[in-house]
């Protein structure tokens, strides 16, 4: 059991934007009704939205030993089908209008249905396996991160400790439930008996702020894009007396914006907390204590309680001096079990042994505060979603076999380079559709040739020169 709902029975667990609410006692009862139908440990695909039905499914399954695989409700159908084939879930928990061939509805609640698939119950699950999550902005491959009960418990304990969470908190949702950062907010707040404010609306929508003010939200989290958007909306002029805490993760915020929010929070008696994490570490690995947010602008802070960092040089040695760049390595009980690429991997145990090579390049200062300076692997983030550039290139190669193309760019700005300019709009449209991300993050550039070395490897440094 992940959470002890019986400790907070009379407290409100959740309120939604349509007037729905559940106490912890009601949530426990609703969860029992749902899980009775699921009938024992098995794999369920959860199609997530920030709504009551989605919330009930996730919390109940996790608490009852049913393994949820979290996917966005607006997932590309071809991608859903590929995952469905690869993992053969026993059930799909989905909005009532979701259609699944040869399935039978076992239970319906809050606009969601538990669909029993015709695949039976053939997937074998390792006893410690709790949850499956995609590495966000998921493209092509049916890859999941395998998280254990111990991972989630450990990360939840750390977060509750460093954010000093209490039952008085009322966090409002700004991130999807299938996204590890959004999920960690739910996990940690349910643990202390706080009240989650659920809305599928975004920060640029009026209904979001109406709900925020009506219900007196005390905190929210955001990726860099959220904070850029709020800044452009002149958010700091808003009257939000109940807002106490803002957290930021999902990529590095521009230092100027970091400073701006830190100053505003200092001047208005709020806390601005920059954090760092990955799905492979359940959610969080580091945080910058709010008292240090101005002094350490640009830094993502120190390891969370129970975790440790090391910086590794090119020879594999641990770096001991400050201000030397190395690959960031993390150790802690929240380092996940490993990946899965199909149902056969769900029986696997712990492949990482508590150690994670983050793939991020970082430095540490004299006071022990870490700053991310780059990435070892070829990926970038679009609106907080990780995009693996090699994987995206492979997808283009399969769909457009006759075109020589490569991908590069920076966070919130991915560029597709190709020699055939006429195909670029189609490539861009294809990636927009497959990733489900807004097209404004994808740029195109026609180039005379894709620069390559003698071995045929793309020279990305050369390529970037073409990018404006």
């Amino acid at each position, binding site marked *: 059991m992940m959470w002890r709902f019986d400790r907070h029975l009379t407290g409100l667990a959740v309120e939604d934007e349509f007037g729905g609410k559940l106490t912890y006692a009601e949530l426990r009862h609703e969860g029992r009704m749902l899980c009775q139908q699921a009938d024992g440990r098995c794999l369920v695909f959860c199609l997530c939205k920030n709504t009551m039905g989605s919330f009930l499914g996730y919390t109940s399954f996790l608490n009852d030993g049913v393994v949820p695989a979290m996917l966005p409700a607006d997932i590309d159908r071809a991608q859903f089908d590929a995952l469905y084939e690869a993992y053969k879930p026993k059930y799909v928990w989905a909005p009532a209008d979701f259609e699944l061939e040869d399935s039978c509805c076992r239970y319906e609640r809050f606009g969601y249905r538990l669909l029993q698939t015709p695949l039976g119950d053939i997937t074998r699950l390792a006893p410690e396996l709790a949850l499956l999550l995609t590495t966000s902005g998921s493209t092509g491959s049916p890859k999941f991160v395998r998280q254990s009960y111990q991972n989630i418990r450990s990360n939840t304990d750390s977060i509750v400790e460093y954010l000093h969470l209490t039952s008085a908190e009322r966090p409002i949702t700004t991130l999807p439930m299938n996204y590890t950062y959004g999920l960690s907010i739910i996990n940690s707040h349910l643990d202390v008996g706080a009240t989650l404010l659920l809305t599928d609306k975004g920060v*640029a*929508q*009026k209904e979001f702020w109406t709900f925020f003010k009506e219900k007196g939200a005390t905190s929210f989290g955001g990726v860099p894009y959220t904070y850029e958007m709020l800044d452009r909306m002149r958010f700091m002029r808003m009257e939000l007396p109940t807002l106490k805490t803002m957290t930021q993760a999902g990529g590095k915020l521009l230092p100027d914006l970091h400073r701006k929010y830190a100053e505003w929070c200092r001047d208005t008696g709020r806390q601005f907390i920059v954090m760092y994490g990955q799905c492979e570490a359940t959610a969080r690995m580091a945080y910058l204590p709010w008292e240090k947010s101005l002094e350490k602008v640009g830094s993502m802070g120190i390891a969370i309680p129970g975790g440790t960092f090391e910086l590794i040089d090119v020879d594999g040695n641990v770096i001991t001096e400050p201000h030397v760049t190395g690959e960031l390595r993390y150790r802690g009980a929240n380092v996940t079990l490993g990946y899965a690429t199909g149902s056969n991997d769900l029986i696997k145990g712990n492949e990482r042994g508590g150690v994670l090579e983050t793939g991020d390049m970082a430095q540490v200062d004299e006071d022990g505060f870490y700053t991310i300076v780059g990435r070892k692997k070829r990926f970038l983030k679009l609106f907080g979603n990780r995009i693996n550039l090699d994987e995206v290139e492979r997808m283009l190669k399969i769909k457009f076999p006759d075109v020589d193309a490569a991908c590069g760019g920076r966070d919130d700005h991915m560029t597709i380079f190709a020699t055939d300019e006429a195909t670029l709009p189609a490539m861009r449209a294809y990636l927009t559709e497959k990733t489900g*991300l807004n*097209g404004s993050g994808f740029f195109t550039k026609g180039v005379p040739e894709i620069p390559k070395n003698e071995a045929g490897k793309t020279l990305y440094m050369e390529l970037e020169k073409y990018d404006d």
Partner: protein
Amino acid sequence: MTNQEKYLRAFMEALEVTAAEAPTLVYGESRAWDSVGHMTLVAALEDAFDVMMEMDDIIDLSSFEKGKEILRKYDVEI
């Protein structure tokens, strides 16, 4: 270009939709008009009509028709 044309063009370019689709769109109900698309649209409208929209108007901009109403406050007749 008339204001009406400029207005339509801002929607088409910011949200990457056709002239026929633009008037039917509602914020949050299509992939094109998500939060990222919304901020692109606001920037496009601000550029097109040389205005600075207030936060209340930015979050109130929820449909093609609503946008016209909001711009009227900034003395822009569509």
